[in-house]
Every structure is written in C-alpha cells, then in structure tokens.
C-alpha cells in the first residue's frame, strides 16, 4: 500500500477520536476523494472501530460479591478511622501550610549556612579607641565606647567601659576588673543562639525601617 503522508493518517485517527476540527475534516475528505490507498486505509480503520465498539462486555461470576466479602481482612477498621487522616493526605489538603513549612526550612538553611560558613574573618563595630591584636579586640582602660559593640569570629577583652550592648559571636569575652558594661552582654556560640540573634536583629531592622517610613 502506498504510504500517504502521515498527517492524513493522523487526521483519520483524530476523526475517529472525535477530536478533529472542521478544517481537518475538510482536508481529510478532499484527500480521500482523490487517494484510493488512503480510502482503503480509512475503511479498514472504521471497520476496526465498529468491531471494537461491538465487543460484548464480560460479566463477573454471579458469586463474585460474596467471594470478595469473605476475603475481606478480618480485623475491621477502628471506628475512629476517618478522623485519622494519613500524613500524605494532610499534606495534600493544606498546601499553604506546606509552603510555609518549606519556606522556613529553606530560610533556616540559609541562616545556618551563614553561621557555619559565612566569613570566618574577624569583624567588629568600629568605634574610636578600640585596639585590635590578631583576632582579639581590646577596649583599653580609660576608653569609653558610647555605642553598642559587636565582635564576630574573635575574642573581646574589656578593660574600659562600654555604654551600649556587647555581643560576641563565635568567640569569647574576657572582662577585666575595671570593665563596665552598661547594656546587655552576651556570647553567642550555639546555633540556636545565633538564630535567635539573627531573628532579633532582622526584626529590629524591620521595625526601624517602618519607623523611618512613618517619620517621612
């Protein structure tokens, strides 16, 4: 049989599926009028279609339902069953909750990575009067720091006075007997402490920016 373009055969199938559009139907009809091979192909397909549609259904044996009922598992389901929603279904029912959970997981992942990786270089609030030796920041005697002091990835020795809060991240803090800290002081070495600190500072930033907007 001569092989006409596959697009014509495609049209035949679309016709049988009932998905053909008017233009396609027109094209198919025109082609079939001129091409005998395709006409035969189409007739055969239509024949197959009729045969398939005439296939008689097979019925289940008459005692089928009883057999199934006898084979049902012995232990009946607990009465409370419908209230216990399987976890996967719960997930499917609350897409928003899942989205929020995923958001937090990803967020915390970035936070941890800043904690674990981040920069391991010493960083500190640059206040006049501070002395730095290696990875140690020193507040010398007789020096008064008027703002907050933050030291990351290093040690802090306080001999003078800090009038704000003191925070040491991944490091230790030594206080001389002469040290005076007016604000809070804390050392952050654990991941949850770090997380709490990050959250606190970001919320504080948020609050500040809102205030700024309000001021304008």
């Amino acid at each position, binding site marked *: 049989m001569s092989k006409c373009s596959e697009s014509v055969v495609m049209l035949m199938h679309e016709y049988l599926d009932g998905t053909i559009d008017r233009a396609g139907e027109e094209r198919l009809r025109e082609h079939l009028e001129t091409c005998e091979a395709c006409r035969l192909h189409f007739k055969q397909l239509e024949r197959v279609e009729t045969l*398939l549609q005439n296939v008689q259904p097979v019925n289940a044996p008459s005692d089928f339902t009883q057999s199934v009922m006898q084979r049902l598992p012995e232990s009946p389901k607990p009465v409370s*069953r419908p209230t216990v929603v399987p976890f996967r279904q719960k997930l499917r029912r609350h897409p928003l909750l899942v989205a929020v959970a995923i958001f937090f997981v990803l967020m915390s992942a970035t936070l941890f990575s800043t904690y674990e990786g981040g920069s391991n270089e010493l960083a500190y609030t640059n206040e006049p009067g501070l002395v730095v030796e290696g990875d140690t920041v020193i507040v010398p005697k007789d020096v008064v720091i008027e703002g907050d002091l933050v030291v990351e990835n290093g040690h802090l020795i306080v001999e003078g006075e800090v009038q704000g809060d003191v925070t040491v991240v991944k490091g230790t803090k030594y206080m001389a007997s002469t040290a005076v800290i007016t604000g809070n002081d804390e050392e952050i070495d654990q991941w949850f402490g770090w997380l709490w600190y990050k959250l606190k500072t970001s919320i504080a930033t948020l609050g500040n920016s809102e205030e700024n907007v309000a001021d304008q």
Partner: protein
Amino acid sequence: MDEQLNQTINEVLRGNDEAFADIVTQFQNGVYHVCYRMLRNAEESEDVAQETFIRAYTKLDTFDQKRKFSTWIYRIATNLCIDYLRKKKPDYSLDATVPGTEGLDMYSQLASSDDGPDDELVTLETNDTVLDAIDQLSETYRSVIILRYLKELPLKEISEILDIPLGTVKTRVHRGREQLRKQLNDLNKGELL
C-alpha cells in the same frame, strides 16, 4: 463525584463492612471485564478482580471523594493486572515472533492449529477475531484500547487511570488501532473489509 456512593463509602469507613458489598456489586462487572481482557484467563481474572476490591477496601480512607470512584478503582485494577503480567512472565512470550516466519507469532501458529467449529455464529466469530487481535497487542496498547473501547471511557479519564499524559493516551490509541487494522487485514486478507 457521586453523592450516594460517597455516603456508602463513609458508612464503610465508619465500620459498616456490609455496605462495602454495594460498592462491589456496582463495580464488579466493569473491573472483572478489564481484568479479563488484560489477563485472558477467567480464573486469574477473578483472582485479580477480587484483589482489586480488597485493595480498595483497605485503602478506602485514601480515596479522595471529590474524584470519581470508577477512575480510582480502574486504576487499582489496571495496576494489579500489569503487575501480575510482569510477575508471571512466561518462559516464552506469545508476542514474540517465531524465527523464520516473518510477521507471524505464536498466536497465528496456535490459531492455525484449531480451525474453529463451523456451527459458530458469524457475529460471534467477528467478535472473537477482534478479541484475538486485542490479545495480541502489547500490554501498553492493550490497556488503553480496553479502557477506550470496552469501557468506553473518555481519553481524559484513561490518562488519569493509567497516570500518563493525555497526548500519550492518544498516541497509544492511534498505534493500537493501526496494529489491530493490520492484524485483521492480514488475518482476513481483505475479505472482511
């Protein structure tokens, strides 16, 4: 979605097992028919069809009542049939072509060995012919053709049952149809047509 059916399902979920019999009665013929066409053996079909309902019973709480139950149960049935066929995997495949006989396979050999009694009605014969042809299709095309024609399901639902894209369903229907056409054509040497 079927309100009455969902009520029955909820009754079963509340512990009334007897209500499950209604569900079985409602779907037994459809499920059995699909299994029978897939497996081509009455005993095995009954077994797998029963297993389908037992599976449905034990997993009834996972059925989403916003969806069609028939789609769900046919999906269980076709999956079990396909699993069954894969596990069974005979030593030799009937679909395999016999060496030295181009285009012929074991089926045509089997068919030629018994020439069928003459007293059979012609209509039944044609029915059988197309059924034999369906049996010769590969599992992939057979499942689609069975659901499409023997259950008269819309293409969209078939795509949900078999968990394949709509486009794939269409392609398989087309190829299945072409294979059937060729087989019937070879078998009848054009006489039927």
